[in-house]
């Protein structure tokens, strides 16, 4: 377990996440992709903190902030899905464009 292997793992998770976020038609599945990307980011942040940050607390704080971003993204995302679904009875990403007008 070295910094390089950890970062490789993080890269793999981010790669899968990118695939998911781009390929999924459903908004909820797309969010799964985003979460997976953030999963990789958090791992990378902790890895840096552990191996090259000399234990600076900012490394941990960064992870927490990523987690907060994730929580907010999820909460707002689902609230939007509910709002859109109520109007259109659908959850495809395409329907979200309806909100932009």
């Amino acid at each position, binding site marked *: 377990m070295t910094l390089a292997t950890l970062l490789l793992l993080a890269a793999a998770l981010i790669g899968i996440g990118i695939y998911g976020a781009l390929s999924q038609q459903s908004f909820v599945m797309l969010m799964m992709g985003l979460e997976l990307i953030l999963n990789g980011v958090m791992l990378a942040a902790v890895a840096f903190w552990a191996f090259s940050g000399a234990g600076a607390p900012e490394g941990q704080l960064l992870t927490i902030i990523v987690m907060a971003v994730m929580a907010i993204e999820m909460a707002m995302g689902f609230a939007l899905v*509910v709002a859109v*679904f*109520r109007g259109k*009875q659908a959850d495809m990403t395409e329907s979200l464009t309806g909100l932009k007008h």
Partner: protein
Amino acid sequence: MAVNWLHKLASRGSVPVFPVLGKQGDGALRHLALSPQIELVDSPRHASVLLVAGEIPADRFEPLRRVHDQLPYPFTTLWFRSEPWPHLERVARIDDLDDLPGALVTAHLELMEGCRGSTHRLLPDEPPNPWEGEGDFGQGGEGMMGGVPYGRPMAMNMADDIRDGLTLDSLTFRLGPFFFAFPPGMAAEITLQGDLVQTWQTQFAPYPQSLDDIFFNARERPVPIAEVELARARHHLHRLFHALHLAGLENVSLRTLRLAHGLSTSSTLDGLRRALSRSGFFRLTAGGGVLGPEQARMIGGSAARAAGMADDLRSEDAGYRRLGFSPVCQTAGDTHARWRQLLDEIDQSLHLARLAERDRVHTERTGSVETPRGPWSARRPADASALFDELLPGLEWGDALATVASLDVAGVADQPVGTRPSGESRAVRGGTGNDV
């Protein structure tokens, strides 16, 4: 052998019984609830003996076959006061209530020790729809939602949601007639969206319930009021027993049953009432199910009085008037009000019974009598289960079932309780001291 002692050990435990109630089968249920070695279970998956108690009408044979087949291997059946189907081999029929617990224990014991084989299944081994090998992946379905994957269609969006306008899939199913939370024999077709009842159609009305013969006698000749009132209180207590079991208050429900069992004019309700209000039964459990005036009139009896109608045939009886009777009422008309009403009426009945016994008061009016189920003047109180169709939609599942339990909808049978359960009522009769 290892297996042998495992089986021996298993036969030492209490007997898990799934009761299927036929007409007048509820007496057996209450008898078994008080037998310590019998454990009545709510799902056939948790049982090793299927008890068919009471006569099952022919239109409920198909559901009975289904439930019969749902018990996991190994299981056996026992028929109580009901004729076993001829094609079942080695089935025992029991007629005496006192023998019933022993017979169940023996059945379980024999099953565990291997001297009795597991009962054979009745229905063919087929999925509800043929599916194997069909469809895009051999799963029986087509496209995204079509076909019958694994033998059943998928749930679809059938009706707009009635609460928050977020319309998702609705689930339609038929529940009963052997669902323990329903009055015996009742079945309904229900549509749920989430755990909210969307539509409710009663398919089978519950079996007509047999009242104590004192109510039949009271229509023909004056009878001791003490006896009438004790029978009434006992009827109400039996209903309370079911509701408390449903609410998860196992101990109090058995206590209620024991009270009903040994009911006499010296019984009091105070302990039970205290236990109930301390536990928060009236405040914490499910509410809802408010009866409108029209509905209350339709069902009559204590449910109507819980909705604020002071109708009671007893007020017209001179005997009762002498005892100072006036109907007690609640106003809210919901589930909790009905339970409070029921407790008040039990209290009142016990009080009346005490006074009547002391003064030897008899009823004076014949021809019309207030049964625990409602007024019986020209016609017997009729089945009111159609009420659920309008009352239950919009309620959460738990509230809906609590409402079902709180309403005594079954009509009154034309026969009094048949062969009297030997232990149950006779002991009580002896206790009152003024037998006819």
